[in-house]
């Protein structure tokens, strides 16, 4: 045998994991505040009227979306990368000083950028583009973080022992490439301070695209940011964690190949469904609509592959809360990848666009699929990283049910709210006049906004239980032997 190090090195995975848990709680807290603001506007002044400039809905919204997407999810994705990457390539980070340094630099530069982003958004420094609100200095910083991750991916692949790249690695590579492309094109902008010879705010910039073009590029980005931050890396995670945790190899490797290439090809076309009935050319709208429906196939390909991986082992769903999280995640994935295409059908979109149904759709995907998978991934990794069992199985189980209830309250209330509002906007009386003034369609939503806020709060309560469980797991739970870590994650009562 050649001379191998004894262990995988999870230093960087650990750092990202801490951040994912912290930002998960903080970002969802911001979301819960927003939800209560919609139901009861006085929550805009929670720190008093004098601070309303910083606590109102408009300012907090971007902080919520960006911290959950780029703080919570991306940290968990990177934690998983620095964990899964080593294992499926069978090479330790400890074997390369360079990769270790790059990994740490990746984390700390990312942390620095995150802090600046939160402060900037709080002050109202924004380019207004959804999920890409950052001004040019941050955009440049993001490029650095991304390049460091790229070095880490291809560096680790370069020194691998396992010749064939496992399914998860494909999805990580796709995430890296697609986000790089999207970020650069969507943030093509000119800093006004330099262009005007030193006038005004130094951080301000103006988009290279105008009006309809800007919208087109933004939603090509916006839709695919969802695809390549909230979908492909999460698929990367489930393709590793579900087989590993259940001890069952993936149901069909061939199906995973088909689903992968299908998803790569189809996903990028679908951005046009955000712009139906807008001023972008009709054929692009139709294209967006059609490809969104086609997208069901590769999405369900992965999801079905995951569920069938459990074949003959369904009793594990009953016994292991960790498997519960993952099976529920893939179920929600199927659910929201069916709901999305339905909303992308033109006649449905005419009703649903601009309403809360869209918010509901985003959240059954984000809370049910992404959130649950991230939580499951961390539950699986923590005992292996910290060499301690999960502190409490019953707490984990309770968390699962509370959060599931939260998600259900969330999306059902938003369905009703969205469809109600959409129908009221278009209602005409017998003389052809509009039946309702706009404010009528706002007031009627109050009960649904309240239910949604309750649902969100439940999910947040679950996050606090998760954070507590993880804290105990990291610090004081029973120390375990290597031999206990084969498949099912060891858990305390």
């Amino acid at each position, binding site marked *: 045998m050649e001379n191998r190090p004894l262990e995988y090195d999870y230093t960087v995975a650990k750092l990202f994991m801490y951040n994912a848990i912290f930002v998960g709680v903080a970002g969802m807290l911001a979301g819960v505040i927003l939800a209560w603001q919609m139901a009861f506007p006085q929550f805009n002044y929670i720190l008093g009227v004098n601070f309303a400039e910083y606590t109102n809905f408009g300012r907090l919204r971007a902080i919520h979306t960006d911290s959950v997407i780029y703080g919570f999810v991306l940290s968990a994705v990177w934690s998983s990368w620095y964990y899964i990457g080593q294992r499926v390539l069978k090479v330790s980070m400890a074997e390369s000083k360079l990769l270790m340094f790059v990994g740490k630099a990746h984390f700390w530069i990312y942390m620095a950028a995150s802090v600046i982003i939160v402060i900037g958004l709080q002050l109202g420094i924004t380019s*207004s583009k959804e999920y890409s609100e950052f001004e040019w200095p941050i955009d440049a910083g993001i490029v650095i973080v991304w390049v460091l991750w790229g070095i880490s991916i291809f560096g680790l692949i370069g020194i691998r022992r396992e010749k064939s790249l496992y399914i998860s690695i494909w999805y990580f590579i796709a995430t890296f*490439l697609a986000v790089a492309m999207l970020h650069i094109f969507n943030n093509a902008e000119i800093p006004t301070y330099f262009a005007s010879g030193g006038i005004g705010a130094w951080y301000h910039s103006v988009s290279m695209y105008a009006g309809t073009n800007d919208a087109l590029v933004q939603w090509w980005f916006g839709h695919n940011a969802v695809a390549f931050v909230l979908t492909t890396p999460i698929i990367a995670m489930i393709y590793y964690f579900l087989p590993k945790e259940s001890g069952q190899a993936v149901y069909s490797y061939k199906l995973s190949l088909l689903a992968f*290439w299908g998803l790569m090809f189809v996903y990028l076309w679908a951005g046009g469904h955000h712009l139906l009935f807008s001023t972008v050319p009709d054929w692009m709208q139709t294209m967006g609509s059609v490809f969104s429906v086609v997208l069901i196939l590769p999405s369900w390909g992965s999801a079905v592959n995951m569920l069938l991986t459990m074949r003959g082992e369904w009793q594990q769903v009953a016994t292991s809360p960790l498997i519960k999280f993952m099976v529920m995640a893939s179920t929600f994935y199927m659910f929201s990848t069916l709901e999305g295409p339905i909303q992308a059908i033109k006649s449905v979109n005419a009703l649903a666009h601009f309403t809360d149904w869209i918010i509901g759709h985003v959240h059954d995907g984000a809370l049910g699929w992404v959130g649950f998978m991230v939580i499951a991934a961390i539950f699986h990794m923590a005992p292996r990283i910290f060499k301690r069992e999960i502190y409490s199985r019953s707490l984990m189980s309770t968390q699962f049910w509370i959060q599931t209830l939260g998600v259900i309250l969330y999306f059902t209330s938003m369905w009703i709210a969205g469809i109600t509002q959409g129908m009221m906007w278009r209602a005409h009386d017998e003389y052809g006049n509009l039946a309702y003034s706009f404010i009528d369609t706002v007031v009627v939503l109050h009960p649904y906004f309240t239910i949604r806020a309750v649902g969100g709060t439940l999910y947040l309560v679950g996050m606090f239980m998760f954070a507590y469980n993880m804290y105990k797991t990291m610090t004081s739970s029973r120390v375990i032997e290597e031999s206990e870590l084969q498949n099912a994650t060891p858990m305390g009562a």
Partner: protein
Amino acid sequence: MFHWLEKNPFFFAVAVFVVIAFAGLVEILPNFAQASRPVVGAKPYSTLELTGRLVYIKNNCNGCHSQLIRPFKSETDRYGHYSLSGEYAYDRPFLWGSKRTGPDLMRVGNYRTTDWHENHMKDPAAVVPGSIMPAYTWLYKNIADVDTAYAEQLTVQKFFAVPYNKELPMADGSKVTVALADTLEGARASALEEAKVVAADMKDQSVKDAVAAGNVPEIVALIAYLNRLK
């Protein structure tokens, strides 16, 4: 066919990139030049209007208000003529929004006044009972950043040939020229002139005093922008 691909990270990455970039090439590039042509009647933003637009962005008004009227009877009845691509030719960035927690604002200048906005922004629920919009009291105190708006005007004039100081045809056959000052001092002065017109219709004494003292509160710039949306 692909059994070798999963073992060659370089070619694998190239293949993924080709597949994902393809859609963008086909979908986005062809109509790029065409979609950005201004319609007759579109005109660039004046210094104060653009300042107000930056205030609009800073407070994420686009998080709850769209600026996109779809071609349905229910929307044209409520908000006015449906949106045309050429109307957005000077919008960098676009502000269509993705959610209507509040009504569309694409043509709000047609049916709301300075006075209405002044009262509404101070206490929305007092003007529209049941409104869930928060009060934007800080807009009455903060001084708007005219300089950055001017820098943006210079930038778009230089890089995108936005027609400042040129005669532009309007829909009714008249001609309009949007002036852009040569110097920063000139830009500040012209923004202040515009601000005085808006402030004359306002009642808030502190805002009037600020404008008289040569400052432009954010609310004044924002209202100038909203009045211009037609």
